[in-house]
């Protein structure tokens, strides 16, 4: 290992002496260039296609494969543009409503479930905790098809469509809430609540004045993540979809990806992506910003979501 000290101490380095491959290989302090290159190539590979798709949404021509100059034609200009075509608008409205409703229903359920699971002593605790993870690892196809069968054979009162989609989305997003909130609960511990009890608070008071504020950031993060997951979900929405009136954006993308003649679909996908990203950024930034007072307002859609809960 003669190479190692030589490399760390330039003064002792013999000029013009190139290290042999073997020495370079044996040097434990060499920089991991191959690994670094792999990582950055991977990251480029994972993100560049999406950037290309976004750029195509600003295409001036009809082509979805080659770029012919910048324009907003497929966002607002053309009659078939993302923000003008009635079908695409319906899909967007459906997705947003589904996301918001899922968020409102699944988050409180998940929080209560998480508190219950953490406080649950005695038999059945571990199986129940494991059970909560099952929806996370179940392939969506299995979940979607079984929910589809439930709603078409057992619970026929629920018609396929928005209602069934909402129930399905709540079912698979609750687990995310539970996992996030439970993790936070375990780090908080019981001490604060016990102190509240010692000071004469009833369990409900302790929950409201101590535990829920402490859980605030986790709950907020859950809200945003549920919203983002619900908006991005395709399989369950597709299986539980009734007629065209309950199509969501991912369903629309799926149906049109191969057939759609224009980049309007790219614009639609980009719009939804922006909304998801805003939600996620909010989930990370807002709890911090709130401490300093009212945060700046972001996109118009996100304003509404934030206002719904804060």
């Amino acid at each position, binding site marked *: 290992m003669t190479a190692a000290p030589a490399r760390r101490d330039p003064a002792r380095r013999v000029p013009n002496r190139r290290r042999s491959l073997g020495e370079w290989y044996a040097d434990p302090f060499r920089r991991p260039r191959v690994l670094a290159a792999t990582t950055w190539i991977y990251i480029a*590979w994972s993100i560049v296609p999406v950037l290309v798709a976004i750029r195509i949404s600003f295409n001036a021509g009809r082509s979805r494969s080659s770029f012919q100059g910048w324009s907003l034609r497929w966002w607002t200009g053309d009659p078939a543009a993302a923000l003008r075509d009635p079908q695409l608008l319906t899909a967007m409205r459906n997705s947003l409503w589904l996301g918001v409703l899922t968020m409102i229903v699944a988050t409180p359920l998940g929080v209560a479930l998480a508190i219950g699971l953490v406080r649950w002593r005695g038999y059945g605790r571990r199986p129940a905790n494991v059970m909560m993870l099952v929806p996370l*690892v179940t392939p969506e196809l299995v979940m979607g098809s079984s929910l589809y069968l439930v709603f078409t054979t057992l619970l026929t009162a629920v018609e396929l469509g928005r209602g069934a989609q909402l129930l399905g989305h709540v079912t698979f997003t609750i687990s995310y809430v539970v996992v996030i909130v439970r993790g936070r609960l375990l780090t908080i511990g019981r001490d604060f609540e016990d102190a509240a009890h010692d000071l004469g608070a009833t369990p409900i008071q302790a929950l409201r004045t101590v535990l829920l504020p402490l859980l605030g950031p986790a709950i907020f993060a859950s809200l945003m993540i549920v919203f983002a997951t619900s908006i991005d979900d395709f399989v369950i929405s597709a299986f539980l979809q009734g007629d065209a009136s309950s199509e969501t954006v991912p369903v629309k993308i799926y149906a049109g990806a191969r057939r759609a003649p224009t980049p309007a679909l790219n614009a639609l996908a980009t719009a939804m992506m922006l909304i998801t990203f805003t939600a996620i950024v909010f989930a990370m930034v807002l709890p911090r910003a709130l401490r300093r007072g009212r945060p700046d307002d972001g996109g118009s859609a996100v304003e509404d979501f934030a206002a719904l809960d804060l």
Partner: protein
Amino acid sequence: MPGVLWLVALFLVPAYAVVALAAGGQDPVFGDATAEWRPWRWQFTTIGDALAGMMPGGDQWGPMGRTLAYVAIALAACFVIGYPVAYYVARYGGRRRGLLLALLLAPFWISYLMRMLAWVNLLQVDGYVNDLIDVMPGLGRVAWLDGRWTTVVMGLVYGYVPFLILPLYASLDRIDGRLLEASRDLGVGPVRTFVHVTMPLSRQGMLAAGVITALPMFGDYYTQNLLSASPRTSMIGNQIEFYLRQGSGNQYGSALVLVLSALLAVLMGYYLWSTDRAAKEVR
């Protein structure tokens, strides 16, 4: 905490009812085309048919065998790509770790459909990928989206590699760097250090990450449909989707779901068992 417990019971029961329905939803449809609620009246012929069909030689073997092959190849490719990335970020992330993790997380928040749409754009006959290939001499434009299994497998890898990298990263991150230094100090080369120290220590993480990546691949039908849509590359998920949503084969379709879930339950069970064990070690 009686109040909270009561609250929880009230929420727990319906939540569990939903979960139980979701999990047990296939069962009722065993018997006739209409649901049969009495388990002692169940007939298992359709399930038997589905099971036999998915075995080699059966009429579902084509899609099933392809599914197994695609998932195996895609999973191997995921490891080849994902392991170095996870290793690099865990060991050498340094100051850029936050940025790297954010970039690795980004695909999670881009809709899967959006990511596939991007490839549909790129892989058109006059798309950018073919533009690149065209530059090289001797290679013509390729109709990538015309039922090529390579495209489907590439799509699966592209879609699911993030699911592999993150758990793998978490497990590699927990490895004590001093163990690797100790190995190097004892004069062991980098390859042997990797094989004898890093690999065994990350085996749990590799298995868990492999399972969590393979599970959704088995249930995938949309990637195949978007990137190929040819019966030559159809997967078992396509069959299920076809029988349930497009045809009137509810019964056969649900039997296929059941058999597939039974196969996957082994993988899921393993994953849940290993996370449960990991959670116990932490406490």
